[in-house]
């Protein structure tokens, strides 16, 4: 039986063997691997790209104080982007499962319709959730639009839920029992994160401060987006910084949501504010790429 980290090594090696850049996690809070610039911005424009990276993804509202065997405030995704999509992409994906020891002649694999959409990012795609013996292990998406922009080359996004997948491989019922490294379980590595993260996110995060942070980051991002059009020397314009402020907004929003500080009515409006920024960056990014 492979350790958690061995499974990760194998998956990374598998995609490296198929020409993907192995990136390290993005150094900011994101809700999903999709939000990293390596996905959100790279899928735009006409340049091919292939990348794989593990991304710890924060969903404050999903925290359970480390008590629930399957729900985590911060879980890890292996994100693979293949742009453009190779014609045998599903074959390659299934090969990756076989590479980590899943014999697909003995397991039940089904692709069930599941179209992905992120209103916050103005992004959507067509695809499936991949079910292995009744468990969802991967989200597979053909991106169609990102930041409100139709994509020129259609990328395939493969997102593996690593905790579920390895719990499945190791035959354990709680993600905390996953053997991460010799002598270390998932619990040893991550329990404090989950407990303290839940306490902060649900009980202590300062709501007023979060609203202020949201407004500050929104303002800064918008200022940068607005400045792009009139700026000489477009290549050096810091759209990446503009995007990082979008990510900060998104994380503040998620924290506010976990604190129960956003009513259902407000929610739609706040999501629209983040989307406006994401769309602004995406459109400018496409122009900037064209300048190169």
């Amino acid at each position: 039986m492979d350790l958690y980290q061995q499974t990760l090594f194998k998956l990374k090696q598998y995609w490296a063997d198929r020409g993907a850049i192995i990136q390290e996690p993005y150094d900011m809070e994101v809700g999903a691997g999709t939000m990293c610039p390596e996905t959100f911005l790279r899928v735009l424009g006409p340049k091919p790209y292939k990348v794989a990276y593990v991304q710890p993804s924060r969903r404050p509202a999903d925290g359970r104080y480390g008590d629930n065997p399957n729900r985590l405030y911060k879980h890890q995704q292996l994100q693979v982007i293949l742009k453009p999509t190779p014609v045998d992409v599903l074959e390659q994906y299934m090969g990756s499962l076989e590479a980590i020891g899943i014999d697909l002649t003995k397991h039940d694999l089904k692709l069930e319709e599941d179209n992905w959409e992120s209103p916050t990012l103005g992004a959507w795609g067509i695809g499936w959730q991949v079910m292995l013996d009744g468990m969802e292990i991967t989200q597979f998406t053909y991106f169609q639009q990102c930041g409100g922009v139709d994509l020129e080359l259609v990328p395939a996004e493969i997102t593996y839920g690593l905790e579920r997948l390895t719990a499945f491989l190791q035959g354990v019922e709680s993600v905390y029992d996953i053997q991460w490294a010799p002598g270390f379980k998932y619990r040893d590595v991550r329990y404090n994160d989950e407990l303290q993260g839940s306490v902060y996110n649900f009980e202590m995060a300062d709501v007023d401060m979060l609203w202020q942070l949201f407004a500050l980051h929104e303002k800064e991002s918008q200022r940068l987006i607005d400045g792009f059009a009139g700026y000489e020397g477009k290549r050096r314009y810091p759209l990446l910084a503009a995007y990082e402020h979008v990510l900060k907004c998104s994380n503040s929003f998620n924290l506010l949501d976990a604190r129960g500080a956003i009513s259902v009515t407000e929610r739609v409006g706040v999501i629209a504010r983040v989307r406006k920024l994401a769309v602004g960056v995406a459109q400018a990014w496409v122009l900037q790429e064209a300048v190169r």
Partner: protein
Amino acid sequence: MNFLLEIGAEEIPDWMIEPALKQLSTDFAALLAANNLSGTVKAVDASPRRLTLWAEGLSAGQSDSEELVTGPPKSAGIGAANGFAKKQGATLDALDTLTTDKGEYFAYRKKVVGRTTKVILAEALPDLILKLYFPKTMYWTGKGGPRFIRPIRWIVALLGGEVVNFDLAGVASGNVTYGHRRLSKGPLPVTFENYEETLRKNYVLVRAGQRRQRILDGIAKLGANVKTDEKLLHVLTYITEWPTPIMGSFDASYLELPKEVLVMVLRHHQKNFSVEKADGGLSNQFVAVMNIDNDNEGIVRSGNERVIKARFNDAKFFWDVDQQRKLSDRVQDLAKVTFQAKLGSYLEKSNRMVELAQQLGGEDAARAAGLAKADLTTEMVKEFTDLQGIVGGLYAKVQGESSEVSQAIYEHYKPLSMEDSIPSTKTGQAVGLADKLDTLKSCFSVGMAPTGSKDPFALRRAAQGVVKILIEGGWRVSLKGLLGGDKQLEEFFLDRLKHYFREIRGFKYDEVNAVIATGWDDVVDVQDRLLAIQAVRPTENFEPLAGGFKRMKNIVTQAKFTTGKLDVALLSDEAEIELHAAAEKLRGQLQGLSYPESLAAIAGLRPAVDKFFDKVMVNAPDQSVRNNRLAMLAGLLSEFSSIADFSEIVTG
């Protein structure tokens, strides 16, 4: 010649496959017809990864034909004829003369060489395939590229053993298909004859009927007492190529959770069949359908069991957490749950529902209406949205509400479809009516009536539900009173009412029109009158009498007759005196009769009406006689049309 077409795609969503097949069949038949090719579509069928069409009796090509091209008139002279001949690539002596009523024309019989079927198909198939309609399509070869439901990965197109060559989305058609994703290796060359068998050997049943049967046989072999579930069976048939059922189990302690929750997890989340015990209760077993041949090592079973256990654990956690606060304490939280931006919170909606439910069903209904939406704040409903109402009902029960109240909450979303039953109790019906009517009135009041195919709040279904509850629950109330005088909403309901009687109950459209024309405020009464018409219509006198009434109505309308009193003294003709007498007699008879009896009695007017039209001219020269006759007819019309406006009945 025979023809085989297989469109190989990545996994197509199950619910889109059958409509696409239907269109494939129709469009291909139309393609043959439009090109004067013989042949018929023998079958269409599909698995998630392929749409297949079989056709037979195709001709090798079009026969040669002649086309008659009309040239200049003869009077234009030989120069014009020469020019025409040249243009047609013919000599002057090859021209014919065409005689029309406008004179004589030069004409040329042009030979058109028929094209081969292979060429025609190669040209037309790419378009035919891309025109298959799917609700949500994608592009995959790049922006502006072809759109389909999922990427097309191979195409088999074989006409009489030869490949029909064409390219689509970078895929060249050929004679090569693919088997099961993992139980088969590599490309498989096929012929029309060995196609199905080759696939079968490679663990693909291309016939949905065979997959369905394999599932049913497998379940029978497991000896599982599976609850029939056509919808799930259909889904599983179309998300597998080689379906094999297996049985698994879960710890019996989970059976303490409500059956509804367990079944929801098994069915909707896991696409498993639930299994019943002999006594009808839920057993701790389930049936999963795999897309491989067997599970001899029990790997798939134990995997499914683990997922189900985790899911049930979640449900148990939700149940326990939710019990910490009663529904009645949660009602105030609804102030924070938006019903609709323009319409305020669910608390406001609940309060309106209470008022309406009180009027309709009294104290119990009001209590249930007040609690009905509180389950929206529970963890269980947040996780299992489809269980709203049901969860509220279950919680109400364990929290000590009366069974009348908890049952009403449990059922208040019913009917969920036209096939679904209405709430089983009067109290439940009252709450259901209050909920749906409030949604309808509120949405219409802020201009959110459905338009065309757009109906985001499912208002048509809500109105259909109201109609169904009122009629099938026997609610003798004023519908217009319930609608609060909103004319647009009344129109909307009128459509729903007609739809219900025609499409759901199968009444003829003219009967529905006839009955509704005389009023539809009491919908139960509308039903009774329709049943009466339906019963009496086949009798000998009814349709002729309806014809007579239509004639009366036409005469009265054409004469622009408005008011006037019948003067019996002015009746002179024998036939009109008889008709008057018959009507007088009928009037006395109708007292206390049921609708069918009344209609039968009214139909008895027929001989007198026939005789009247036979012998009497309404438009008599004498103004007073004419007016008197019109007055008599108008009186008859209004007096005997209270059950239905017979003039709406379409006769022979």
